[in-house]
């Protein structure tokens, strides 16, 4: 067991030495890997931020049931009675036309409304369904619309749904991007390792003659690929952090002009670990494929 650790430690040190012996090449590879990875990482982060913003704004989706202007008091009372007894609803709130008007006045439209002789607003019910199943919303929508005196039924959740659909699309796009760029990174590592194997052909052959096993010969290359990936992951993380830092101020002041409080958040510990792990894995994968392909025994 200690021999196993010793051999891995040796392979690790050998990989480190190889990285350090060509600082420019190492730096360039890390930059290529890092910049390529920073794109999907930043995309993921952006979507994550928008999603949390959307969650904060939307709350539980509601249905607004607007009565018509000329609905009778009986119609309104009947509608309220039905809502009260409906098992599919979590609750409802009756907003009378007077209440609605007062809210508008408070909202700063007093001057405009003051000129009106009659209240132009209808009675309305803000209904909270039990559950978030879109089918439930559609069936409720149809039922409410059929009641006498109901002018219009509005699903407040519609825009949230659209946003979620959009975010879903964004997530798929980021995944696709990550997949494509990840593939490119595997190819980059594959090629780096291929060149290394070529330049170390002699050493590899000699080592085999002296009794080196395949794992012994492969290990430094695995470590090299993983370390190179990890370095790239560090560059990606630094790029994303720098972007968040640079955009943080402008985004906050933009949000402020809309009266919202919104701060761009960078990758947390889990996301950072995921980016680094993913990068190291890609490097390992590239080296593993390359080693399989190029290290088949060939002795003279």
């Amino acid at each position, binding site marked *: 067991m200690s*021999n196993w650790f*010793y*051999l891995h430690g*040796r392979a690790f040190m050998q990989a480190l030495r190889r990285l350090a012996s060509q600082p420019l090449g190492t730096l360039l590879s890390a930059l290529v890997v890092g910049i390529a990875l920073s794109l999907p990482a930043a995309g993921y982060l952006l979507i994550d931020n928008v999603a949390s913003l959307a969650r904060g704004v939307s709350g539980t989706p509601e249905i607004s049931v607007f009565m018509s202007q000329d609905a009778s008091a009986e119609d309104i009372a009947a509608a309220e009675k039905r809502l009260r007894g409906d098992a599919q609803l979590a609750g409802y709130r009756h907003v009378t036309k007077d209440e609605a008007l007062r809210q508008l006045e408070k909202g700063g439209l007093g001057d405009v409304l003051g000129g009106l002789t009659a209240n132009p607003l209808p009675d309305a019910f803000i209904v909270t369904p039990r559950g978030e199943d879109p089918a439930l919303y559609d069936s409720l929508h149809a039922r409410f619309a059929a009641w006498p005196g109901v002018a219009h039924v509005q699903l407040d959740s519609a825009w949230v749904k659209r946003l979620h659909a959009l975010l879903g699309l964004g997530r798929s796009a980021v995944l696709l991007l990550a997949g494509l760029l990840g593939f490119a990174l595997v190819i980059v590592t594959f090629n780096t390792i291929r060149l290394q194997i070529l330049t170390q052909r*002699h*050493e590899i*052959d*000699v*080592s*085999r*003659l*002296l*009794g*080196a*096993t*395949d794992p*012994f010969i492969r290990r430094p290359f695995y470590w090299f690929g993983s370390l190179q990936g990890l370095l790239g992951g560090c560059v990606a993380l630094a790029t994303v952090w720098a972007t968040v830092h640079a955009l943080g101020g402008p985004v906050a002041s933009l949000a402020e002009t809309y009266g919202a409080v919104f701060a761009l958040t960078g990758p947390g510990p889990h996301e950072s670990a995921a980016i680094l792990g993913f990068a190291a894995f890609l490097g390992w994968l590239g080296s593993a494929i390359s080693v399989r392909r190029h290290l088949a*025994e060939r*002795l003279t």
Partner: protein
Amino acid sequence: MIVFNEVVKQYPGGYTALAGVSFEIRHGELAVLSGHSGAGKSTLLKLIAAIERPTSGSVSINGQNVSALRPRAIPYLRRNLGLVLQEHRLLYDRSVDDNVMLPLVITGHPPRDAAKRVAAALERVGLSGRGREMPAGLSGGEQQRVAIARAIVNRPSILIADEPTAHLDVAYANEIASLFKSFNAAGVTVLVSTHDERLFAQHSPRRLVLHKGLLQGAGA
């Protein structure tokens, strides 16, 4: 113990380098393999280290059938052999110490003990204190001795050397021959190939003479 049984080696081009060779080298023997260039000496030695595989027949080392060995097992066979190939195969970007240390690194030997063994092996071949130098700065004979030190550093029970005295002047060649004799005196089975049959004459070795892929005379 090295046993060849009706070994035929045909290279991919169709050339028959060994045409049915049988012999036995017992534990602790000193054997010298001679023959003209192209007689098949290197081929025979490569079969022992499983660098080449026989086309037919079998090669066995210490009772283990090398010709039937799984690829995974080959490294462990080589660790028990000391190998000095015709081309020195030193690493020219590493110091003499690092070159000699390589077999110990491969087997995961503890570093401190490995350093002691390297020093001892270099002393054995008369290169004490030269460990820090680079192989390119050494003479041909000295490089050959580095290769020999590398072959014995693992304390193998069998030492195989392919023309270790080629390109050396007579004085150097005799020195190297004595070196192999001294390893043999310490209990190591030694099999050395050479162009020059006179070289080991004073050590009265077992003789194997190859001619066009066949063993000649008493050795057969």
